[in-house]
């Protein structure tokens, strides 16, 4: 009898035992706290146990940010012992964790919760598929070459405008902060990084219309369940922050977590060791094989340039005058010498220009609205017409990758020289422009070492160089500018010297190439300081996609009364995405006491990008 009572009590105690404790012990036996997916959910990088999320609200255990085991315990425990059954419950705050634990441990008898906010989000978003979106470089802002990436969650709607964008950015307010401080804080982690969610059309207005950046969309081959899990995880991150670092823990890097949470078998973050640039994340995602389709969206600027191509010089003048209200749109419609299609293009271009003027504070709102309505009401009379042909530029995926190593061999004034170079980022005017925005350059720490006469010397060490050689057209009148800071061997003596220059100029061109004039104030510094100014004329010719020729001649005048000629010629042969051959000739005039004739350098370089 006693024995039965004993068994009975034992049985009861098992039934009423705390499920949480049981599941915690099962989870620990299975070593789930070491599971890659648990670490993904907690944003713990491959090495170590410390999460990249810096916000205590993201963790349930006191030491959860550095103890995945404690966090696992705390999560299971909290799911069974909910303090509330509404939006504040653990299940509602951490739906991705819950989903994974239910699936992996077969959790049963969890308390019923009502996640009103989350359900509203899901109902509105209707997540079906996802894409990675890459707004391309902004003209005249080479720094934007590093770009930006965000994830778009697509719904059942056919129109992608109704999708939602998941964005990670530094929570900085440019209106309130000193612009200079703003840039620095972005670099060194002085801002909180936050996730935001916005309708995709708002992002289009921001990048395509306001910033004038072309947009590339990469559809991800994720199924609905995977996308749902991604959205659940985004929900967990919603109110949390991490310190934002421009170079590694940036917008693009954080998108990679989301993709890996959606599909565990994809490894993306391992692709990077040092810094993560948005174009490189596109490469990593593409190489992981989950890109199913790619789409191109022209920016407002690209659209306006396409109109320029379709119009004659006279018609472009008419568009410009219409946009300023100088002529009446009726005069275009009533012009019998024009074809219907020309009339449509003239009016459409005028409407774009009018909007462009307004968005760039060159027209007031009243005029913008007035001209807009008068132009468009005339355009509406002309029927549908042809779609504006816009040629799609090379996909950024076909561009060279960020890091370059180069091996060069040649002669300097008859003496053989060998050079080895390394550049962590990113692109210069001599590199192939395929997949890049023409005329833009941004280089960090470009290093070139020279071996000559058994001596190793610094040929060049560029800290930072930026160039934006932007072509002027009838519709756009940008200035070109460039800056450079670092050591080079272009001064009059034969040593490398530290120099800085910032200059501006003008450029014109067409599809075959462009030419430019630049005026570059500069100074050299070593033991003494020499200031000067250089005037340059240059041209870039595109023979075809594989061949590109650069040439530039410069005359410099220094404050010490000396003058100097420099010349450069480079022929780039693109062998494939990441391999190029370059034939180069450089002339640098030197002080006659050093070299009568200056330096004449012929060299052949092999550039490899990775």
């Amino acid at each position, binding site marked *: 009898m006693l024995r039965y009572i004993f068994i009975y009590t034992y049985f009861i105690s098992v039934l009423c035992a705390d499920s949480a404790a049981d599941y915690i012990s099962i989870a620990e036996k299975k070593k789930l706290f070491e599971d890659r997916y648990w670490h993904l959910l907690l944003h713990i990088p491959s090495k170590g146990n410390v999460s990249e999320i810096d916000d205590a609200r993201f963790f349930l255990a006191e030491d959860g940010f550095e103890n995945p085991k404690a966090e696992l315990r705390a999560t299971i425990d909290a799911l069974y012992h909910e303090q509330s059954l509404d939006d504040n419950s653990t299940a509602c705050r951490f739906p991705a964790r819950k989903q994974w634990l239910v699936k992996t441990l077969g959790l049963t008898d969890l308390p019923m919760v009502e996640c009103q906010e989350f359900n509203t989000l899901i109902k509105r978003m209707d997540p079906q598929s996802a894409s990675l979106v890459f707004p391309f470089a902004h003209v*005249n*802002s*080479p720094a*934007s070459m*590093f770009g*930006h990436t965000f994830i778009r969650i697509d719904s059942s*709607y056919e*129109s992608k*405008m*109704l999708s939602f964008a998941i*964005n*990670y*950015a*530094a*929570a*900085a*307010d*440019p*209106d*309130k902060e*000193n*612009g*200079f401080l*703003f*840039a*620095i804080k*972005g*670099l060194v982690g002085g*801002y909180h990084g*936050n996730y*935001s*969610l*916005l*309708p995709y*059309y708002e992002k289009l207005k921001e990048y395509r219309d306001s*910033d004038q950046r072309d947009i590339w969309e990469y559809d991800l081959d994720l199924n609905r369940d995977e996308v749902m899990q991604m959205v659940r995880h985004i929900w967990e991150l*919603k*109110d949390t922050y991490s310190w934002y670092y*421009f170079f590694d823990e940036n917008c693009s890097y954080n998108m990679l977590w989301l993709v890996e949470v959606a599909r565990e078998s994809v490894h993306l973050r391992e692709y990077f060791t*040092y810094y993560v640039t948005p174009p490189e994340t596109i490469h990593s995602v593409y190489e992981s094989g989950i890109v199913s389709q790619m789409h191109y969206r022209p920016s407002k600027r690209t659209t306006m340039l396409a109109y320029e191509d379709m119009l004659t010089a006279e018609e472009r003048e008419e568009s410009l005058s219409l946009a300023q209200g100088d002529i009446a749109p009726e005069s275009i419609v009533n012009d019998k010498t024009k074809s219907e299609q020309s009339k449509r293009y003239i009016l*459409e271009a005028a*409407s774009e220009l009018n*909007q462009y003027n*307004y*968005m*760039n504070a060159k027209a007031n709102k009243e005029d913008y*609205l*007035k001209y*807009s*309505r008068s132009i*468009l*009401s005339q355009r509406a009379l002309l*029927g*549908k*017409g042809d779609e504006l042909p816009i040629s799609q530029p090379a996909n950024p995926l076909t561009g060279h990758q960020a890091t370059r190593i180069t091996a060069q061999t040649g002669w300097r004034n008859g003496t053989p020289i060998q050079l080895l170079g390394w550049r962590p980022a990113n692109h210069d005017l001599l590199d192939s422009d395929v997949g890049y925005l023409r005329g833009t350059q941004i280089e960090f720490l470009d290093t070139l070492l020279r071996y000559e006469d058994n001596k190793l010397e610094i040929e060049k060490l560029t*800290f*930072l160089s930026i160039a934006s050689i932007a072509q002027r057209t009838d519709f756009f009148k940008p200035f070109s500018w460039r*800056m450079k*800071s670092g050591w080079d061997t272009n001064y009059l003596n034969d040593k490398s010297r530290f120099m800085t220059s*910032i200059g501006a100029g003008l450029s014109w061109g067409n599809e075959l190439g462009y030419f430019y004039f630049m005026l570059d104030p500069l100074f050299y510094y070593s033991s003494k300081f020499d200031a000067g100014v250089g005037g340059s004329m240059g041209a870039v010719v595109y023979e075809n996609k594989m061949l590109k020729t650069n040439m530039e001649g410069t005359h410099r005048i220094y404050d010490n009364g000396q003058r100097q000629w420099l010349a450069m010629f480079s022929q780039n042969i693109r062998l494939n995405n990441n391999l190029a051959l370059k034939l180069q000739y450089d002339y640098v005039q030197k002080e006659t006491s050093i070299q009568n004739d200056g330096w004449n350098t012929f060299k052949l370089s092999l550039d490899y990008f990775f």
Partner: protein
Amino acid sequence: MKKLIVSIAAVAALSSAAIAGVNNQTGCGLGSMIIKDDSSAIMLALQATTNGTSGNQTFGITSGTSGCKKTKIVMNERAEEFVASNMDQLAKEIAMGHGESVDTLAELLAVEDKEAFASALQSNYNSIYSADDVKMAEVLDTISAS
């Protein structure tokens, strides 16, 4: 160290930059887009280090129509939001008789024949945009009445 070096490099590059403001306007009518003056170009270069464009990024599933006059005919909220946010683009595409925004509006209003819808809107351009300061509610009311 790596971060420090590059920070200094960036200081050198950007030290000549001025402070600029971006005038962010919101509204339910035409012309409520972001206005940037010339100095904003410099700002854009600086913003590259944060990828931030506007300070107050929200986690919002709606772009909002809270300040807008309501439509007379009961409409779906998505259509109202969409039109309020895309007034300028829509005006242009309606005048052109085609475009992604017009197709999107057709889908939101559950219109089957998008081509006919776009063409009908084009013919009615002057009644839809009867004044310079037309608002979302009037646009949608005219569209659904026609």
